């Protein structure tokens, strides 16, 4: 019994760290789910847009002296605007043809974005110091030290996830969105500008990725590959949660972060693989995903 208690004590910090990492999965998979649910586009550029968010925050700070807090708003707006431009000029042309073209196009965009960043800034990454004010949130629990910034990440990501869910599920705009997903022609007939809604939805999904990128900038090295490291796991999260399910992607994101955190203690070598094992099991037993409707 004491052994078990000891083990649990050991695992507690890992659970906390896992959930915080899960916050990134949740934010990213939420954006993917929003875009997929509305546009039926598998946005492979999502990782690159996350990277772009971090880089824009870095540029704002090192070129213009704009700090973290404004960047948290500005970077998603800027990257979201880039997303809107991408949707208008390229992605909108692909709605009528096979969705794999959308996947290929966005994947190509991701390679171009990452290549441009690599060419301009190299591969080692830039530094972005966490704002000092978070020291007030630092938590010390015996041996375990939890930086205040990580606490903030958890708060910010959860709030944004919850707000997005509320907007989509509980507001009038959200109901238009959901209706347009199921019957675009009918919704258009009611006088709602569906193409504009799609553009803005893509922009919003991209902005979510960029927001996650700004949150990540002080923790990870701001490098061109930072998004690519995340994106494959995030796609697995989306598949496990159920394609296009908003709540599913949020819950699954946090849950997988947690599972990964625990795996990192008991079998570190498998901590990346575990996500894909879960994906395989879910696909075999619940092909529509944990929260999807078959």
């Amino acid at each position, binding site marked *: 019994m004491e052994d078990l208690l000891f083990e649990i004590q050991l695992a507690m910090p890992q659970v906390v760290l896992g959930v915080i990492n899960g916050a990134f999965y949740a934010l990213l998979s939420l954006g993917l789910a929003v875009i997929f649910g509305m546009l039926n586009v598998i946005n492979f550029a999502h990782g690159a847009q996350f990277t772009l968010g971090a880089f824009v925050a870095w540029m704002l700070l090192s070129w213009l002296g704009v700090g973290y807090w404004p960047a948290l708003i500005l970077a998603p707006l800027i990257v979201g605007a880039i997303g809107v431009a991408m949707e208008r000029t390229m992605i909108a042309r692909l709605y009528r043809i096979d*969705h794999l073209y959308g996947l290929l196009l966005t994947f190509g965009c991701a390679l171009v974005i990452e290549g441009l960043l690599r060419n301009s800034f190299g591969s080692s990454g830039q530094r972005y110091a966490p704002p000092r004010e978070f020291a007030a949130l630092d938590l010390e629990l015996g041996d375990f030290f939890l930086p205040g910034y990580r606490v903030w990440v958890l708060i910010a990501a959860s709030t944004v996830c919850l707000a997005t869910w509320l907007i989509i599920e509980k507001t009038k705009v959200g109901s238009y969105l959901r209706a347009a997903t199921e019957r675009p022609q009918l919704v258009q007939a009611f006088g709602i500008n569906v193409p504009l809604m799609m553009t803005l939805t893509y922009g919003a999904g991209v902005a979510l990725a960029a927001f996650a990128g700004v949150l990540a900038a002080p923790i990870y090295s701001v490098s061109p590959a930072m998004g690519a490291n995340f994106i494959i796991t995030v796609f697995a999260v989306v598949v496990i949660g159920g394609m296009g399910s908003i709540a599913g992607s949020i819950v699954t994101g946090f849950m997988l972060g947690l599972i990964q955190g625990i795996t990192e203690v008991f079998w570190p070598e498998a901590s990346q693989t575990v996500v894909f094992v879960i994906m395989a099991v879910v696909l075999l037993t619940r092909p529509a995903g944990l929260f999807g409707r078959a």
Partner: protein
Amino acid sequence: MSLDRRSIIKGAVGAATLPALGGLPYRSARAQAANTIRIGVLNDQSGLYRDISGPGSTHAVQMAVRESGITQRGINVEVVQADHQNRPDVGSTVARQWYDQNGIDVIVDVPTSSVALAVSTITREKNKLFINSGAATSDLTGSACSPNTIHWTYDTYMLAKGTGGAMVAAGGRTWFFITADYAFGHALERDTTAFVNAAGGRVLGGVRTPFPGTTDFSSFLQQAQRSRANVIGLANAGGDTINSIKQAAEFRITRGGTKLAGLLVFVTDVHSLGLEVAQGLVVTESFYWDLNDRTRAFTQRLGATPGNLRPSMVQAGCYSGVLHYLKAVADMGVAAAKASGAEAANRMKAMPTSDDAFGEGTVRPDGRKVHPAYLFEVKTPAESRGAWDYYKLVSTIPANEAFRPITEGGCSLVRS
């Protein structure tokens, strides 16, 4: 809309394998001029080792060609480059194509140990020459040594002896490893463990972190801290090392007196981390741009490498290796050098090396280039006097001690 999950998975798999298909080098097959030496720089042009090797290595090789004065002797030199994407399959394909179709005589650089071992095998098969600068594994001059391969700049033994030895000497008796879970990480952990044990220290444990793809090391760092080891050994490289060190600072892992040992840290990594985070780290390198007048002169002649970075030891090694090779070519004649890579290697082993980047040195019969290694400590922000002023010299490990004794590597080329 009929988008199903299966096609998403298919798409994801397709996307993941796509980069392997692009980026192969090509050159129009021209008639082979008998007096043209063709050098292929094969390295990481797009991933985490781009800044330590990448286009900067090609830049350094081109300078070696200019400074060798070989064109004045009527010998032409062509330099081509390609991206191996850190994948043995891609690296092997390029190497074969270069040797079979493009008339390449020598392949240079090749970071990533697994790719380097593959290219070494192919080079031997084709009797060409392989001057490795970027890879770390000491097996290249040990169990996997080859008469056609010269390992130029550093290896896991040198790193383990330098950084590992210094940490133990400074009182780091107990160790915990955070190891990248692939050939290079294992080799570095193995070589460092040997030094720790030999010095009377003890390894308390370790974690193997998935490679590539691990971005958050906080959990592993917590485990390391809980082991109460004096030293956390980072047997990883590039982005993994940067993230580990950055997050160790974030989680204040070292506040209880635990020390971090970055076993493979390049000057570009320190540049990326910033002195605020990297200060106090002990690193082992065989070249530092600001080491002495000769290295400063070398760096000035080289100018800014692509990305506006100072040269890494890997890039300096490409310069030094190619310069020495071209001296050997001038000495033995183009025809003989092209005819047999092993003969060219033998000639390089017979001649002492000398250049501004590494000073004087030799190439051993097992293919190991030997020169001094340097133990540096990363400066504090207050100590740094300007851009790229990052290291202060702690000690110099003489050439005859910096690398594994030739009889201990198990290389078949060495007659006992």
